[in-house]
């Protein structure tokens, strides 16, 4: 059932929606079968053939009209009740005074994640502890985006000028797919993210590494790469803890080596793909705001060595 994420919920919110979807589906299926059955019956039983009686010139029957008006109203009234209870379950009210756990900001075309309590800053890969309801304060830095991790909860837009609150939760460890679900420009396709739910111990360990200042590079390649990071103006957009780089135009790279994917999941985080990304971002993710710096192969290799050391 993982193939159908909306039917493989791992949170109480997503469970409520999944149950509703299944219930509604069966009712709609019944209606579909009724209509299709009737139409099929009509076209077979009343088809023109030799010896068929003349068509009956009837104009209607008010009682029948009332019946097939009231029954749908009844069905829809029942759906309304489901609607209200599912709303409460899937989008619980935020208790007054409850502070969001994460602030997530949608950018063209990446997700910035700020952990309020610990101060961790991440991009595109969200770690959460298992079994805890996580409240997200969702914003946008530019156009309308939409944050959607189907197994963890509903989708909701990230609207500039209109912050939204969203609950996500995972009742079991795992990696859960997420994507931007509102067309936001040319690289909307590659604004995917993932939520990695971990048991408390693993999550705490992850958090510790994220909070630690990355060690200065020691290998010659990596040292050269660190220098290139400044010379090639990477510092104008990216931040790396413990260095002069502190801009937030692009994703925080302090622990980039710890991430599974790159560039909103347009590429995998392997040395080869990172190399390709640095050399030709305009081929992997055309029109993304990452410029092509026309790096030589050596320069790219050195930067890869540096960045892959930032665990």
């Amino acid at each position: 059932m993982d193939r159908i994420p909306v039917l493989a919920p791992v949170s109480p919110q997503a469970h409520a929606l999944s149950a509703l979807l299944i219930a509604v589906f069966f009712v709609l299926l019944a209606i579909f079968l009724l209509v299709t059955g009737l139409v099929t019956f009509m076209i077979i039983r009343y088809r023109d053939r030799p010896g068929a009686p003349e068509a009956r010139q009837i104009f209607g029957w008010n009682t029948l009209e009332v019946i097939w008006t009231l029954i749908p109203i009844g069905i829809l009234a029942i759906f309304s009740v489901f609607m209200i209870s599912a709303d409460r379950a899937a989008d619980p009210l935020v208790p007054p005074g409850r502070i969001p756990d994460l602030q997530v900001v949608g950018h063209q075309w990446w997700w910035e994640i700020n952990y309020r309590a610990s101060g961790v800053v991440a991009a595109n890969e969200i770690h959460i502890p298992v079994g805890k309801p996580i409240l997200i304060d969702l914003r946008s830095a530019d156009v309308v985006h939409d944050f959607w991790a189907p197994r963890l909860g509903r989708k909701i837009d990230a609207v500039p000028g209109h912050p939204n609150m969203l609950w996500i939760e995972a009742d079991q460890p795992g990696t859960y797919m997420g994507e931007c679900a509102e067309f936001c420009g040319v690289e909307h396709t590659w604004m995917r993210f993932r939520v990695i739910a971990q048991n408390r111990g693993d999550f705490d360990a992850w958090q510790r590494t994220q909070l630690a200042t990355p060690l200065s590079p020691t290998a010659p390649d990596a040292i050269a790469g660190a220098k290139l990071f400044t010379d090639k103006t990477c510092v104008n957009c990216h931040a790396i803890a413990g260095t002069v780089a502190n801009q937030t135009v692009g994703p925080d790279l302090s622990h980039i080596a710890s991430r599974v994917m790159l560039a909103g999941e347009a590429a995998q985080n392997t040395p080869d793909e990172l190399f390709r990304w640095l050399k030709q971002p305009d081929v992997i993710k055309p029109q993304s705001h990452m410029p092509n710096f026309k790096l030589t192969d050596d320069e790219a290799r050195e930067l890869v060595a540096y960045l892959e050391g930032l665990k």
Partner: protein
Amino acid sequence: MSEMVEAGVAPAIVVPEREGLLRWITSVDHKEIGILYIISAMAFFLIGGLEALVIRLQLLAPNFHIVSPETFDQMFTMHGTTMIFLFVMPMLTGFSTYVVPLMIGARDMAFPRLNAMSFWLQLFGGIILYFSFVAGGASSAGWFAYTPLSEKAYSSLPGVDFWILGLACIGIGTLAGAINFAVTIICLRVEGLTIRRLPLFVWMTLVNSFLMIFALPLINAALAMLLIDRFFNAHVFDPAGGGSAILWQHYFWSFGHPEVYIMILPAFGIISEVIPVFSRKPIYGYEFVAASSVAIAFLSFTVWAHHMFAVGMSHVANLAFGIASMTIAVPTGIKIFNWTATMYGGRIRFTTAMMFATAFLITFTIGGLSGISFAIFPLDWQLTDTYYLVAHFHYVLFGGSVFGIFAGFYYWFPKISGRLLSERVGKWQFWLTFIGFNLTFFVQHILGLAGMPRRVFTYPDLPGWHAMNAISSIGAFMLGFAVLLFVWMIFEALSNGEIAGDNPWEAWTLEWATTSPPPPENFERVPPVHGRRPLWDLAHPERADELVARS
């Protein structure tokens, strides 16, 4: 008993005799303008279809590079815009323009020159829209142009400006057309044709005219303010300047939702003509089909924010729009039941028109049911902006409006051209279209549930995504082939088709009481009208409809 009346009153316009291209360009005759609409709409159908094939080709497999992401975005923007504003609406308008004056026994529309202006404005708007391709690129902001993406800061090229101006042009023409239809139907009906005896296609055209009159100004206002934002550096819809992105969405959808009913109501009218004729009995529940259309028209203005359930509106707002959206399903369902009941006790002739009308009942119902799953707004939170949504609206728009258009084409082509379309080839075209359509779009329901978002130029190789996209793309090419077959079939019929005669279907409304095609003045004499089926009453005076109904 022969109380023939003079052909319906019409404005006295002296039309000079012209031939060739000049005649068509200067024509104010509703039949010629109707044909112009139909030809123009067919051309844009092919162009919009090509855009769809580019989309489906690019999505055939993950990480294809058939077109650049920017081009892909222009393709889906223009595909939607073209199909809605340059195909479905003009095609249905073309049928109305040709057929409505005939159905009410009139000589022409109330404002023949305004009629011509409407067509040429629509065409001109389409040209402006397509000119954008050679002037820096078409709009790539999607057919609903959400802000701030469509503002200058994020769409700096003029594509969006051409999109705005093209739509404004088309909108003015459409509004003029709506006013023309309403006045025509109100003022030009032949003696005896009361509102309660109106053919349902005419009734739907009338209701639709009011929908357009109230809905089109809403998008015109939104477009005007977006243009002012873009040209004069204002920020009405731009949060960066204190404006509201959500206000754009409210404005757009307050038009956008009535718009989808504008696209389906005339198709409902076609179905309401075709099913009775080929079942050989009157429509079941005429008053209910007519009244439910009025209900739909009113309700359509109360549901718009169901397109915005994911925006983050209040619980109360979500609930209100959810309930309203479910309510609008009721009058729609009433129609489906009445059309089905019309076949009961009938003697059904399976002409291609009837096959499309029957298929419509199934495919439009599927679209309507998936619509209900969106109205239940918590479900919308999992379904919207995925391929499940794309499936839904194609089932109602293609399985609904376009199947209705095909039914109308097969039904009225003989009246318009004097020749029958080949029923033999028609059956092929029907099955290729029906199978191709379902192959393309049914699997998209599952693709959406699997999580594939809409408006993406490619996708990761997640389980099943490639296979489902491939099936959809194959279906799309099958559909494309079916459309080409349809076009070929039209040309064949025009040159070699069987002569139709006045009334090849033995139908009962007034357009069949004249030659095929009708003479310039439409009728030599209009038959007397004492009921909803004047030609039935004429052929069966002892069993005339209103005699039977009274007994």
